[in-house]
C-alpha cells in the first residue's frame, strides 16, 4: 500500500493543478488447466495497471499504462496533459469527487495462504481428480486457480481508497462417453473449497447422463441449478438494473419502479459491503458503495447509480461507478438473490414432469425490454417425472424472457451458491413453470 501511495503522490505532482484520479490494479495470479486427464496449460501472471483520468475546466482525458518507472510514467502524464488541453469543453462534465467516508470491507475477503499457493498444490488437486476419473473410465477437464489483487482509487482532491482480496476457484467438467457433469466452487480462501465434493458432484452427473435421450422442444417446468439462475440474473442486472439503461428507457424497470414486475418470492439486492457477494466497498471513483435493494418481493424498487446518472435522475449516487467517463453507465456487480424455503430435492419431488438444468451455455440477449435471452443447456440435463430424475436428456436451446420466467417462479432453494465472473453473484436454485425451449440438438 505504501508503494501505491507513493506512486499516486508522484502522479499528482506531475499533474500539477489539473484534477487527476488514479485507478491502480495489481495482481498475482496462477491457473492450472487440465483436459483429457492431464495438465494441458499451466500459467502465472504478475500484473500492474495504472489508469489516470485528468479533468480541467470541462475537459477530460484518460491515459493508462503498466510501467510505473520514472520515464514511462512521466511520458504518459505529459502525453495525457497535452491531449487534455485539446479536448472539447463539455458542460456539466464531472470532475473526480471529493472524498466521502468508505466503510471497511467485509471480513474474510483476503486469505494470506491463498495468495501464495505453489504450482505443486494445483497440480496435486488436478492429479487427485484425474486418478478418480481414470478409475471410472471418465475424462476430466477444468481449472484450479488462485490469486491476490489490490485495487486502489485515489484523486488529488483527497480520495484514497484501497482494497485487497484473494480468490480461489476449482472448476470441474467430467465426461463419460456422451455423459457430462459439471461442478464448481469459488471462495476467497482456497482452504474453504470442498475439492472432493466438487469432484463427486461432477462425476456423479457425468455418470448419470451417459445415454441422453431427446425430448421435443416446447414449454416445460424447469428446475434450474444456481449456475443457470446466475446466468439469467446476470443479464437482468446488466441490461436492466443500471441507471443508464433505466434513464434511456431501455430497461424492463424503466418507468416501472414501485410496480410488481417479478414473482413475490424474488428479492434482489446489490451489496458489496456484507453478505456472500461482498467485494470492494468503493466504486471506481472511490465513492462508498451502498447496499441497494433492487427488487423487493417482486417489486422493482431501485436501480444502481453513479454520480452522473444520479444527477440526471435527481437521486443520490449509490456508488456504482465504472471508470469515468463511460457509455454504459453504472452496473450492479455484487448481486444477491434472497433464498427461498425449498431445496433441489424438494423441487424434484414436487415435479410431475419437468427438466433439470445444470448449466446454460453461450447465453445472449435478444430483447432488452423483456430481457429475452437465448442459450443452450449443458453439462447434465435431466428429465424429471413423477418426482424423480428418470433420464438424461440431449441438450436444448431456450428462447425465454427472464422477466417472464422470474414471474413464473414456483420455488427457490434455501441453499445458495456464490459465483465470480462478471462481478460477483450469490443465487439459489429455482423452479419455474412454462419455460420455453425453442429447438433441440443431437447430443
Amino acid at each position: 500500500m505504501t508503494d501505491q501511495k507513493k506512486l499516486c503522490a508522484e502522479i499528482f505532482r506531475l499533474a500539477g493543478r489539473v484534477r487527476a484520479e488514479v485507478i491502480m490494479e495489481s495482481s498475482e495470479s496462477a491457473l492450472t488447466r487440465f483436459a483429457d486427464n492431464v495438465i494441458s496449460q499451466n500459467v502465472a501472471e504478475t500484473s500492474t495497471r495504472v489508469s489516470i483520468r485528468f479533468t480541467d475546466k470541462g475537459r477530460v482525458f484518460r491515459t493508462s499504462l503498466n510501467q510505473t518507472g520514472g520515464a514511462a510514467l512521466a511520458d504518459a502524464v505529459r502525453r495525457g496533459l497535452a491531449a487534455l488541453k485539446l479536448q472539447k469543453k463539455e458542460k456539466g462534465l464531472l470532475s473526480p469527487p471529493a472524498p466521502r467516508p468508505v466503510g471497511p470491507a467485509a471480513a474474510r475477503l483476503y486469505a494470506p495462504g491463498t495468495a501464495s499457493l505453489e504450482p505443486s498444490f494445483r497440480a496435486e488437486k488436478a492429479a487427485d481428480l484425474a486418478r478418480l476419473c481414470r478409475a471410472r473410465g471418465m475424462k476430466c477437464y477444468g481449472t484450479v486457480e488462485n490469486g491476490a489483487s489490490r485495487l486502489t482509487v485515489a484523486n488529488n482532491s483527497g480520495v484514497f481508497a484501497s482494497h485487497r482480496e484473494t480468490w480461489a476457484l476449482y472448476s470441474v467438467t467430467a465426461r463419460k462417453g456422451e455423459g457430462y457433469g459439471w461442478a464448481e466452487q469459488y471462495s476467497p480462501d482456497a482452504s474453504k473449497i470442498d475439492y472432493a465434493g466438487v469432484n463427486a458432484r461432477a462425476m456423479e452427473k457425468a455418470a448419470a447422463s451417459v445415454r441422453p435421450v431427446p425430448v421435443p422442444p416446447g414449454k416445460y417446468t424447469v428446475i434450474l441449478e444456481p449456475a443457470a439462475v446466475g446466468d439469467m440474473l446476470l443479464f437482468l442486472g446488466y441490461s436492466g438494473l443500471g441507471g443508464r439503461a433505466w434513464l434511456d428507457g431501455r430497461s424492463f424497470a424503466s418507468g416501472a419502479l414501485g410496480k410488481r414486475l417479478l414473482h413475490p418470492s424474488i428479492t434482489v439486492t446489490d451489496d458489496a459491503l456484507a453478505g456472500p457477494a461482498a467485494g470492494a466497498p468503493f466504486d471506481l471513483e472511490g465513492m462508498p458503495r451502498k447496499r441497494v435493494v433492487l427488487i423487493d418481493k417482486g417489486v422493482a424498487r431501485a436501480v444502481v447509480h453513479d454520480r452522473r446518472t444520479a444527477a440526471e435522475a435527481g437521486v443520490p449516487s449509490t456508488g456504482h461507478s465504472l471508470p469515468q467517463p463511460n457509455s454504459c453507465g453504472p452496473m450492479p456487480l455484487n448481486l444477491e438473490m434472497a433464498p427461498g424455503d425449498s431445496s433441489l430435492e424438494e423441487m424434484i419431488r414436487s415435479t410431475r414432469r419437468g427438466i433439470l438444468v445444470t448449466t446454460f451455455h453461450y447465453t445472449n440477449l435478444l430483447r432488452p425490454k423483456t430481457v429475452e435471452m437465448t442459450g443452450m443447456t449443458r453439462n447434465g440435463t435431466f428429465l424429471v417425472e413423477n418426482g424423480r430424475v428418470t433420464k438424461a436428456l440431449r441438450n436444448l436451446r431456450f428462447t425465454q424472457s427472464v422477466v417472464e420466467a422470474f414471474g413464473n417462479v414456483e420455488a427457490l432453494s434455501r441453499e445458495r451458491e456464490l459465483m465470480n465472473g462478471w462481478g460477483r453473484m450469490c443465487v439459489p436454485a429455482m423452479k419455474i413453470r412454462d419455460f420455453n425451449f425453442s429447438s433441440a440438438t443431437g447430443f
Partner: protein
Amino acid sequence: MFGFCEEAMDVLSSRRADFGDIRIVRNRTQALGVRNGGTGNVDDSETLGFGVRVLLGGAWGFASSGLLTRAEVRRVSLLAVKIARASATLMERRVKLAPEPAWRDLWQTPFIKDPFTVPVEKKFRTLFEADRLMRRDRRIKSAAASMRFVREHQWHATTEGSRIEQVLLSSGADCRATAVDGAQVQERGYPCSHGGQTLAMGYELIDQLDLPGHAEKTAAEAVALLKAPDCPSGEMDLITYGNQLALQIHESVGHASELDRVLGYEESYAGSSFATTEKLGKFRYGSPIVNLVADATLPGGLATAGYDDDGVKAQRWHIVKDGILSGYMTNREFAPRIGLGRSQGSCRADGFANIPITRICNLSLMPGSAGSMDDLVRSTKRGIIMENNKSWSIDQRRLNFQFGCEIGWLVENGKVKKMVRNPTYQGITPRFWGSCDAICGPGEWRLWGVANCGKGQPGQTAMMCHASSPARFRGVKVGVKAG
C-alpha cells in the same frame, strides 16, 4: 529488446528445455467514444511486458510479468520452469512440437496513415459530428460513436533460434443509434455491430468509413424499426452478408475447426466440436459451392502477420473445399496429431501476459457465381435479408446456432418488399451450410473484422477477419419466438 530475450534463452537452455520462447510486447491502444454529445470514453494506453513459455520434460510452463528488467526476466523464466515441472507430474505423453525452421525477420502491417499521428481532437471532431447527426429525432435516446486503434510491437525469440520482430496495426470505428418508444427498443449501427468495422489498416479506414456521412441514415433506420412489423415466423430463404455472414462463418466454421477444441482441450469452457478428425477429407460441411479458406496473408486481415506466436510462417489453406471438411486451425503442439508435418500457423496469444493458443485465422467464404446482390434478390421468390448481428449463441459442439440481427427486409418475387424488425434465424451447422445455393461474385467480396473473439482460461481476446460475398441459404427457420 532482443537483449532481454537472450536472458530468458540462457535460463531455458541451462535447464535443458525441449523448447522455450519469450515474447516481449509493447501495446499502444487508443479507444475514443462519444455518447449523446458528451465524451463516452477515452483511453490512451501503453503497456509493455513479456511472457516466457517452456516445454520441459514434455510438459508446459508459462509465466509473465509487466516489469521488464533482466532480474525479472530471470525470475519469471525460472518460475515458468517450476510450473513446467509441476505440469510434468500429470501427463500421459510428452508434448512434441511440429518442426518449424528458425526465422530471423521483421514484418509489419502495411498502412497509409499512422492513426497515432492523427490528433485526438480531430478524431473527436468526427465522432461528435456523427453523434450530433444521429440525434435529430427525439426518439433516439442514445447515440454513440467510437474509434479504436491498436499497435502491437512484438519481439519473439525461441530456443530454436528464431528472432522475429513484428509490428501489427489495426483501426476500427462505428456509430450506433438506439431508438426507444414505449416497449420498443431498436438499435442500428454503422457499418456494423460489436465495436464496428475493424481491419488491419491505418487511419485511411476511418476516412473511408465516413461516419458522419452515414449517421443520419443509421438513426433514421433505428426510428423506422420502431414501427416496422415483426419478422415473420416460418421457413424461408435467408440472404445475409457483411458482419452477420462473418459471424456465421466465425461461430459455425471458425471455432468448430480449432484443432484444440476438436481434440477436447477446451471442453471445460468453450466446448468441443462436431467436426471431429475422422471426418477430415470426407464430411460434407456444406453444399459444393461452399469454399472456406483460412489465410494469414490476407491483406487487411486482423489475423494477418508474418508469423504466428508459435513462430510459424503465415500460410493459406482450405478449411472447407467444395463443401468438404478439409483442414483445421492448428498450433505446433496438435498439428502432428492429425498427421501434419508442419503447423498451419494459427496459434496466437493475447498480449504479453497470455500463452499462445490455437486461434481462428482469417477465414473467408470464397466468392461464387451468383453475380451482384441485386441479381441474388431478383432470383429469390420469398426470403428475408438480414443485416448486422445483434445477438449470437451456439451450442458447445457448434451445431445448434441462433442469431438475431438489427434489421431485416422481406423479399417477394425478386423484389425487396418491406423492412422487418427483430429478425432471428436458427439452424444446425452442416444442414445450414448444405442449404447454401447461391454466393455472389468477387465484385461483392468484402472483409469484415471480428475484434473481440474470446477464448481460453484465463480469458484471451483475439482479432480476425472473415471476408465474404452475400449468400443465400434455402429453407431456414426464421422468426424464433419466445413462447
